[in-house]
């Protein structure tokens, strides 16, 4: 069972973000990056599938030079190959152009299942996986928390959360699944893996290799400006012993905040 992982390097989730001077993006100086948390579930699942059923795991990412670090993480954990889509021509890519690039690259590989994270933390969009699947003409199920294969490896049974409940689907392969928390937990990266990943080659693909035009001219959505949301005014403590404070709080919620 060959697995293709679509991963993204994102701003470390602990980081405080600062808006850059152009007020269109975040300042990148001194910022730490990491594999997107939801992609960790995809990576772990891909390696588990390989361990159980054999086959190859290829990790693929579209991003600037630094994205190679995230690809090396995948190699260290157990991916066999890494592919880096990197080109100034990809700058300004939106969901549509990103999906186009990933799908064009995916067509160069053999895959039975494509795994990605539910969304890239920070970008917080969660639509690229479905777009890639449509472009490749294969099924897609979002937010998978359980993934099992039929004995002949031709079908998958997946479970996913929906608002207030779960759905279970039977899906013919090949297919794309985005991974949600609950699917698994990423193993500790073995030291041996880290050492080995340092020397493994990462294949680079440019826009021209994929027959794609400049993303900036093709992107359908463009960020015009970025700002901080208004800070919440908080900090009001309701004083007194528990009974007094509770009574006053409930009064405030009813009469002042009018939320109950």
């Amino acid at each position: 069972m060959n697995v293709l992982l679509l991963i993204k390097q994102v701003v470390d989730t602990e980081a405080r973000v600062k808006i850059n001077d152009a007020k269109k993006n975040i300042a990148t100086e001194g910022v730490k990056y990491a594999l997107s948390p939801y992609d960790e579930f995809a990576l772990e699942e891909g390696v588990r599938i390989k361990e159980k059923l054999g086959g190859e795991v290829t990790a693929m990412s579209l991003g600037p030079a630094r994205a190679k670090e995230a690809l090396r993480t995948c190699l260290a954990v157990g991916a066999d190959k890494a592919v880096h889509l990197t080109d100034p021509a990809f700058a300004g890519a939106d969901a549509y152009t990103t999906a186009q690039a990933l799908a064009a690259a995916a067509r160069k590989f053999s895959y039975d299942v494509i795994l990605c994270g539910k969304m890239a933390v920070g970008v917080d969009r969660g639509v690229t996986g479905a777009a890639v699947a449509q472009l490749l003409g294969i099924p897609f199920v979002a937010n998978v928390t359980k993934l099992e294969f039929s004995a002949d490896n031709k079908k998958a049974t997946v479970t996913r959360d929906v608002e207030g409940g779960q759905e279970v689907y039977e899906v013919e392969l090949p297919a794309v699944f985005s991974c949600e928390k609950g699917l698994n937990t990423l193993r500790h990266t073995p030291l041996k893996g880290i050492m080995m990943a340092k020397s493994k080659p990462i294949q680079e693909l440019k826009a021209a290799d994929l027959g794609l035009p400049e993303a900036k001219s093709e992107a359908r959505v463009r960020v015009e400006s970025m700002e901080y949301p208004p800070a919440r005014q908080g900090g009001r403590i309701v004083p007194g012993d528990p009974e007094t404070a509770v009574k006053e709080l409930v009064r405030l919620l009813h009469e002042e905040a009018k939320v109950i």
Partner: protein
Amino acid sequence: MAAIYTVVEVKNGQAGRPFLEALSEARRQADKMGGTVTAIALGQGAGSVDLGRYGADEVLAVDQPELAAWNLEACGSAVAELVEKGQPVALFLASTVHGRELAGWLAARLKAGVAADVTHLETDASGAVTVTRPMYSGKVRTKATFSSVRPQIVLLRPNIFPLLGESLGKTAKVTATTVSVPATASRVKLVNTQTPPAGEVELTGAKIVVSGGRGLQSPENYKLVQDMAKVLGAATGATRMIVDLGWVDHALQVGQTGKVVNPDLYIALGIAGAIQHLVGMQTSKCIVAVNKDPEAPIFKIADYGIVGDVFQVAPLLTQELGKVVHRPVSV
């Protein structure tokens, strides 16, 4: 005349609130540009839901067996076919799990732009949309515009856009519509659904959320959260900490790698307020925090806080709330 289309998922002859919110917003924006609103209703009983009440001029009701249960390819093809026929300037979708995968699929199928998790939007006279959406887990927000490609696909965050108030007194023109469904849609079959136990309120759409964290000290004490939620008709939530400890299911996790909620009232019991949790609830209209540590970061963003022992305060609060709340507000 510019048209805005929206998709409404119909289950058992009913449409969920996130879809009605998107429809209401479509109406407001269409009015600004002198345009029309068409609702594509998908599912069993698609033609029977009163969508004129929430602003639809026209309803294209698709009630075919292939779309009785959610099927991304079938629903996507249906919407694409109708959008290509009608050529709307924009397509508004509710940002539910189904809505998001539909939006991504359609963006590829229609070669269109998609803006997700939109919390505010504006249109000009020609129907060009400008969206405001949070990024970096709400630490910043961005304004984005679309190119000239149509439709502009917009995913609207639930619980932000108000439902149209009283009925507009308008009746939508309902047309039973048949679409062609590709044979390949049968590659995916919905084989089972699990609905939550009766009385459980869904988290992302809830008007009130009661949430618990590490300050509860042990899993049995999550009952304090549940008792308060029951009295309020509220949904229950949790921090990543107690989810990772196995006290509650990850579906209850609120935060950066959990759910983002924006209820009218968020009550945080025994939650310190790590930034990753705050990003999941900081847009709540009113935040209440109970924690024994006066320095807990949550107090900085809480509208009201009680510094005290959660084991003492929570039961008293539940009791007191019970006196004021006449009937549970359920979603």
